[in-house]
């Protein structure tokens, strides 16, 4: 296994200065990020912040007009961006797998569930009988607490939560060292969301995989991840362990995100602020990250940040005019 060959000090995933453009839009503007073994990293931001684009770049799944302009992505010591063809295909799913956004169509509507999981396994590991393959799929379904009859069913016969479990089963089929979960529960109802999220964490722990959880729901992130990276307009503006980030957010945007999460534990007043997002089509400097406390990095030279660590709003933030 490639996993064992890498040096122990090296993080599992290291992203260096990655730039992704969509036509004229600079979607990811020079991101550096690492993920350690066994870690769950939350990647948060609003739509258009570039979080999904970055996640897709790790899988090399950026499609035209998008393209990865520059940067390096090392996974298990292999530079993903310099691979291609068969090598890239081999790397996908064995080393890094994807749990797509839980929308209704992440499964092929005309293939049975069993076949869809099997073809992921077969594409990488052909040395097995039909029967053992079937057993393998059934045990995967069992791991995500799906009944065995799902094996022979079609996607349209399953509920949203069950489909998402199928996607989880598929993602862990080859025991990848990294799982990328792109808003895996955002299309689900909260009760189902909770059970699916728990299943996700459980299997991840059993496999000792790392995970990147892309999302916009700060409350969900607070419950699921070890460390959070906040993206804003194509850049990471703050990274910190989850407890540190919530108790001591530094960047104005992070503070705003946390302040505006509705909670059922306290009725707090609404915080109304509008951030003027920079024009994404013009080149802009990549903010430099500084360490404010161990493991807590903040983009300090960014216009939306200041050095205060209190929860008050910065004066430079724009407040919407009122009539």
């Amino acid at each position, binding site marked *: 296994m490639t996993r064992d060959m890498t040096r122990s000090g090296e993080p599992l995933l290291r992203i260096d200065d990655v730039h992704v453009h*969509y*036509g*004229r*839009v600079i*979607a990811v503007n020079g991101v550096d990020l690492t993920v350690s073994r066994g870690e769950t990293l939350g990647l948060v931001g609003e*739509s*258009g912040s*570039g979080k*999904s*684009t970055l996640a*897709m770049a790790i899988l090399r799944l950026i499609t035209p007009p*998008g393209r990865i302009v520059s940067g390096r992505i090392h996974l298990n010591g292999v530079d993903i961006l310099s691979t291609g063809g068969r090598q890239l295909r081999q790397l996908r799913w064995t080393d890094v797998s994807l749990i797509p*956004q839980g*929308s*209704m169509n992440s499964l092929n509507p005309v293939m049975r569930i069993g076949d869809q999981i099997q073809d992921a396994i077969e594409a990488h590991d052909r040395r097995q009988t039909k029967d053992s393959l079937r057993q393998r799929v059934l045990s995967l379904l069992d791991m995500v607490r799906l009944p065995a009859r799902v094996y022979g069913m079609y996607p349209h016969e399953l509920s*949203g939560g069950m489909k998402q479990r199928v996607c989880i089963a598929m993602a862990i089929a080859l025991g990848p060292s990294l799982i990328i979960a*792109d*808003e895996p529960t*955002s*299309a689900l109802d909260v009760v189902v969301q909770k059970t699916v999220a728990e299943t996700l964490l459980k299997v991840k722990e059993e496999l000792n995989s790392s995970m990147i959880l*892309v999302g*916009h729901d700060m409350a969900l992130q607070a419950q699921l991840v070890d460390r959070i990276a906040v993206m804003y307009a194509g850049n990471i503006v703050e990274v910190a362990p989850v407890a540190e980030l919530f108790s001591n957010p530094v960047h104005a945007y992070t503070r705003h995100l946390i302040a505006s999460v509705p909670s059922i534990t306290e009725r707090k007043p609404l915080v109304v602020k509008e951030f003027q*997002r920079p*024009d*994404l*089509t013009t080149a802009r400097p990549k903010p430099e990250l500084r360490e404010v406390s161990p493991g807590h990095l903040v983009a300090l030279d960014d216009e939306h940040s200041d050095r205060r660590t209190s929860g008050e709003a910065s004066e430079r933030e724009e407040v919407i005019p009122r009539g």
Partner: protein
Amino acid sequence: MTLTVQQTVAPAETTPRRPRSPWRNTKLMVGTLMVLVIVLIGVLGPLFWDTRLSAAASSPLNLPPFWEAGGSSDHPLGTENSGRDMLALVISGAPATLRIGLIVGVISIVIGIVLGFSAGYLGGRIDSVIRTLADTALTIPALAILIVISSYVREIGIATMAFIVALFAWAGPTRLIRAQVLSMRELGYVRMARLSGASTVDIMFKEMMPNLLPYLAAAFVGATSGGILAAVGLESLGLGPQRIPTLGMTIYNALQSSAILRGMWWWWGLPTVILVVIFVGLFLISTGLDEVANPRLRGRR
């Protein structure tokens, strides 16, 4: 109802530049140009050439075009075996063919709009009746039935011909419009219009119709083209108008006289060229319109 949080990969709020008008589509323009050329032949031709020469025995028999051996400048495109001048045939035949198509197109689109909107917007029983009728009309081999009808109706004119063909041409537009209306019925802005107290007629014509324009245009062109195809088919079987020199009838005569194997290419070739220009022109217009209606089909290498 499921909540789907759309996570757009590309930023949603990029600079809002107004895109180049989708109607300025190359295919659309080339196609329109081709059809215009045929229209011009029909409109301007009679000013320069005597169309009475399209009658039988008005000219010498079996003349080739002027540039071939034996050709004459009196009949620049040659004549056929009963003494009709080919140029005159083309000039009077081309507009007749277009006219049939146009009538069929108009009838079909009007029926299509009425039935399609009723079925799609009102739904229920009306919808099932209209849908069944349209589906049946689409399955029936229309040309076969048309053949039977035409073989009965002897004294046939352009208009009669067009009406007969239109009997089967409305189903396509009806189905297309119904499908579009059905998908639009639950759209946000249609609900919004109802909330603003708009009447059903207002919703159909002011809210839905403008957004359906490219589809309607495509359906119209499709029906026109289908109408011409059916009419030319009937004419080529000898079932068209007898008194008007249509392109199809010219082909019928040419086939009956084995013109192809006799090497008289101008006899069947000229009407064929005109028809090909018409069909390809309409085809380009309709694919162009498809691209207008469905931007995803546009701009693919």
